[in-house]
């Protein structure tokens, strides 16, 4: 028998329980600042509701701008969680144990803001339910509504299921809000039968959630690709957006992990190896993203269709060139230079790369949405679109509120899956040892 992992007798995962039990002044300050942004956003949004979408910088022909960019961006980030967590679970990657919860929470929270971005963009949000009363199933936006709803539901379930044992732990600790945890724990006591059911359920969800996640961002991309507008109507959009989503999602995840690692002193749980591996994944996605972008733009350029060339040139050398080339630097040049060097794939290095990528990916969404609209076929272009202060404040508000929700979550639920860490410590070593031995040449081991 392989000995259990060396456990320092003093190691008891107490630090994982701390956020829920102790609140520092730093938390209140952070929450207060974030709440300010949230209030500002609400105020600005009500003004927009009162006056109309005219308070934005949108005009003919750029009917979609920052809000739709936010929508695509946020839905993209949602791929971080579920996809990463599900894929890593299926691949039995043991280093995932400390990051799955954080990832899943990102997904659930950010999807709300993705949907929220669309609602903010509507001229008549009070009629949004018309999408349920009079749906037109040929519309990609209806497909969006369906798939995001399913994804959200699935993600919530996929977040909740592995949360149950942790809730049981918290309930058993009996320190705070015990009745709350008791209600949510659904009477989980860790019996063999319960464990089996739970693990089966989690496994099923892990498999089910992957195609749903892929479909979500594919369908978001089809909102653009299903029109006939130049440089939107491209077959590559489906895979392109999924790759971009995973790319931006991992970057967001790395930033989130780095922050909670720092704030909650989780250095023992979120080790260099996690960041290194995530960094490697990020590097792979960066290369993939670059491949897709390059293929897309090269084919457009080579084809020289006049309508598409107008838009391509406005991106490469025209009014949108500064944004376009910043995007290339942020999404490819900087991350690849950092992440390709093992020495730099540390916490700091990956965080820097992720920050650049997050900004760059937001720009990428913007560059996809706006230039195609700004050069219509038959009508004179009106110049370049400038977002108004309303759009900027709402975007900042969304980000702040998302962070606020995330922070509140960490205060109520453990942000690192405690039972999985414990499981990893107790059983994983053995399982991995068995698995790897089975790969090696030699007779099958009879247990």
């Amino acid at each position: 028998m392989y000995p259990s992992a060396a456990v320092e007798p003093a190691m008891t995962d107490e630090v994982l329980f701390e956020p829920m039990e102790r609140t520092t002044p730093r938390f209140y300050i952070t929450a207060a600042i974030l709440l300010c942004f949230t209030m500002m956003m609400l105020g600005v949004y009500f003004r927009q509701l009162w006056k109309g979408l005219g308070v934005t910088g949108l005009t003919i022909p750029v009917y979609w701008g920052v809000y739709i960019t936010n929508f695509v961006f946020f839905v993209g980030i949602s791929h971080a969680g579920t996809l990463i967590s599900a894929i890593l679970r299926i691949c039995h990657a043991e280093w995932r144990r400390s990051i799955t919860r954080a990832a899943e929470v990102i997904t659930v929270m950010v999807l709300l803001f993705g949907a929220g971005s669309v609602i903010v963009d509507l001229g008549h949000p009070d009629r949004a339910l018309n999408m349920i009363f009079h749906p037109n199933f040929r519309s990609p936006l209806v497909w969006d509504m369906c798939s995001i709803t399913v994804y959200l539901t699935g993600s919530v379930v996929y977040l909740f299921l592995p949360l149950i044992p942790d809730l049981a732990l918290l309930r058993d600790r009996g320190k705070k809000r015990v009745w709350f945890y008791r209600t949510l724990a659904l009477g989980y006591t860790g019996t063999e039968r319960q464990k089996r059911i739970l693990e089966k359920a989690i496994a099923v969800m892990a498999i089910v959630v992957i195609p749903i996640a892929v479909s979500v961002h594919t369908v978001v991309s089809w909102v653009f690709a299903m029109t006939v507008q130049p440089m939107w109507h491209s077959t590559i959009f489906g895979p392109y957006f999924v790759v971009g989503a995973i790319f931006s999602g991992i970057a967001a995840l790395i930033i989130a992990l780095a922050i909670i690692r720092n704030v909650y002193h989780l250095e023992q749980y979120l080790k260099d190896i996690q960041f290194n591996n995530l960094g490697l994944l990020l590097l792979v996605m960066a290369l993939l993203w670059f491949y897709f972008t390059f293929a897309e733009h090269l084919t457009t350029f080579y084809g020289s269709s006049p309508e598409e060339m107008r838009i391509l040139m406005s991106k490469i050398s025209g009014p949108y060139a500064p944004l376009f080339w910043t995007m290339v630097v942020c999404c490819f040049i900087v991350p690849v230079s950092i992440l390709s060097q093992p020495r730099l794939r540390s916490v700091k290095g990956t965080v820097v790369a992720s920050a650049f990528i997050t900004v760059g990916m937001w720009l990428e969404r913007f560059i996809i949405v706006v230039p195609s609209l700004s050069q219509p076929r038959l009508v004179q272009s009106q110049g370049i679109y400038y977002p108004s202060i309303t759009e900027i404040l709402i975007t900042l508000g969304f980000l702040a509120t998302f962070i606020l929700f995330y922070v509140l979550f960490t205060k109520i639920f453990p942000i690192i899956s405690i039972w999985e860490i414990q499981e990893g410590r107790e059983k994983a070593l053995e399982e991995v040892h068995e698995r790897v031995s089975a790969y090696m040449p030699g007779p099958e081991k009879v247990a």
Partner: protein
Amino acid sequence: MKLDRRDFLFLGGGAVGGAAMGRISLKGIGLLNEALASEPLSDPGEEKFASSICRSCSGGCGLRVRTVGGKVVKVDGNPLYPVNRGGVCPRAQALPQWLYHPDRILSPQRRDKAADKWQTASWDNSLHTLAGAMQKIPAADRKNRLVVVSGRGPGVAQRLLSRLLTAYGTDTVYTLPTGLESAHQALGFMAGSAKDGGATRMAYNLENSRCVLNFGCDLLEGWGTPSHTHWLFGRWRDSSRSGRRTTLIHFGPRFSVTAARADEWVSLKTGAWAAAALGLAYVLISEDLYNKEFVENCTSGFEDWTDSGGQRHIGFKTLVREEYRLSRVAELTGIPSETLVRVAREFVNSPGGVAIGPQQSPSQPGSLSDALAVHSLNALAGNVGARGGVALLPDNGWRLPEDPEQIKTSGSLEEILRAVAQRPDVLILDEASWLLDMMNSEQRESLSRIPLVVTSASMADSTTAVANLVLPDCTPLESWSEGQAPESYPFELLSVSEPVLEPRGESRPWGETLLALARSLDPAVAARLPWKDFSEALKAAAVPLATRQDGYVFGSEVDEQWERLLERSGWWNPDWKSGDEFWKGIRDKGGWWNPLSWPAEPQRTFPTPSGRFEFYPQRLAALSPDKASAGRERDRSVLPRHVELALVGDAREFPLLLDPYEPLSFYGSGARAIPYLQQICSPYGAGRGWLSWVEISGEDARRLGIRNDDTIWVESAKGKIRRRAIVIDGAMPGVVGGPLGGPPTTGLWATVEPPLADILAPNTDPVLGIRSSAVTRVKLYKA
């Protein structure tokens, strides 16, 4: 269940927060719904159709007005009205916006100084003020201490004004230029005025023209009566009707809408109209293509001739042959010789070729010498007084009974500016916002020194900004309207229509105001205008016309064709039997016209000293200021000739030429405050409106680093102003188009911008004394 304090707070907070959120969100959605709901409509009322006559420009198109519940909802063209035949230009379409404009002045306003706030006054009070000021002027001084400027088109109201002023003691009514003055006077010199010395109007029979040479007129942007001209254009391009498509060739420096829509745009250097026309004449003469029959039998001054005093004069032919060789013309105009040859041949190849021009816009009517050159082309084609050509017709418009004297009318902008500069005691402005637009800031300033400035504006415009008494007029829909044949229209016409609705507020039709003013002045004046109200005056004017032995009340097109046919065979069936029946007929059907008033046979004799069409106009020679010079020099100054534009400023410092023009939205008078018209003011520049702009060519723009929509400085030797730049790729380099008009300077949407007049250096025609052109040297640079 153990609840400690923390849990309680948590639970309590959550509960309250949740409830609050719920309540707020429910209430919020309710409020939201209310805020976002559209207003319900109440029962609108009965739908009726009425006729009216437009007065947005002096053209006077027939309108068909749809009213619902007594409110005007839509204005369209009257299909029975011969001038526009069912179509109307966008200015008439926007009439409801004028009628119900928030800047409408609905009661008389007065103030002591232009800087003070307006105060509402009563009509009696206001008329009393004006009459008092007028009576105070001693009789001997009334000629120049009362100045009246009226941009209203001819009609009964203008006759009332003339009669009132004659009785009062002034001798001039200043009208605003129509743009056709130079061409009209030129034709008057060459083809003679009416036999009885009565007024004439210059008309074109463009319906039957097959080749139209347009020397710079903005045909599609307000020339003549816009709806009629547009209808003509549609007819020209409709080969199914006449079997042939009329060719339109546009000469001019600016790539205007007319130039773009013409069959060919011949770009020529600014001001070189005469050179171009005489170049074409050269081709016609040297290739023997001109109408020999007409020229030999009906014109004089073509060949060299000797006058009664034994003096030898050169003829038109000699002048053209010697001085307007194609090489010289190409140099003067920039037109390649091949083009001139080709165009000239095409001009005479088709029967019914006509030359229109030069420019004929109110701000640039053109110079006499240019107009003489253009008309000489018409003579060479033999179309003066002929089918498809140009003619001087007797001006049989509306007249009041017993109206022998004709007060002098002056349409010279320079004369008006002079009269106003002399600081009269009273200045009356009637539909004269165009005058204000043509004044530079200094001239406008000087108006504030006139003690009493009265305006009839129905809406806040540039005249109300300088006035201290407003006697608000109505829109044409609220008053009895009359119309007559517009200046370039070929047929005689008289029309009348009832008001469509009551005047809004306390505004009053100008005709009524004049009658009331007459009554407020001394009894001698009142006696001359004895009618109770304007409709009575109209009827009094109409009844004498019933004695005419021609013409028809408006009918459907089929009826007209039949009637024309009958008349050709010598029959004329009157549509009326008495004066009253005539009045009733024109009231019901809208008017009377004579489709056969265009000369049926080409004109053979002309009421000139020689009895012929004069290439060398003898009356002009008698007037000519060059009396000192003699011989060839003298002949040259009288015959049609090219005169270089006198431009102010150094050509190197100001390398570009600004060519002012009037877009359809702003043509003639203030329509600046009407939103729909602002939004369509330029077919080129994204039509956004509310800003003044200039048009520059792509090449100039590239050279100066100016992009479309940039704000630039336009500087001339007289000053500089800021304008938005619109780049027109295909325009001729070196020429800058300068539209007059722009955003309203008063009222709800006022944006005060310096007028184009601030930088213009206009030219006056030395013989006619009217403004001939306003082309100015400028330079452009980014702001």
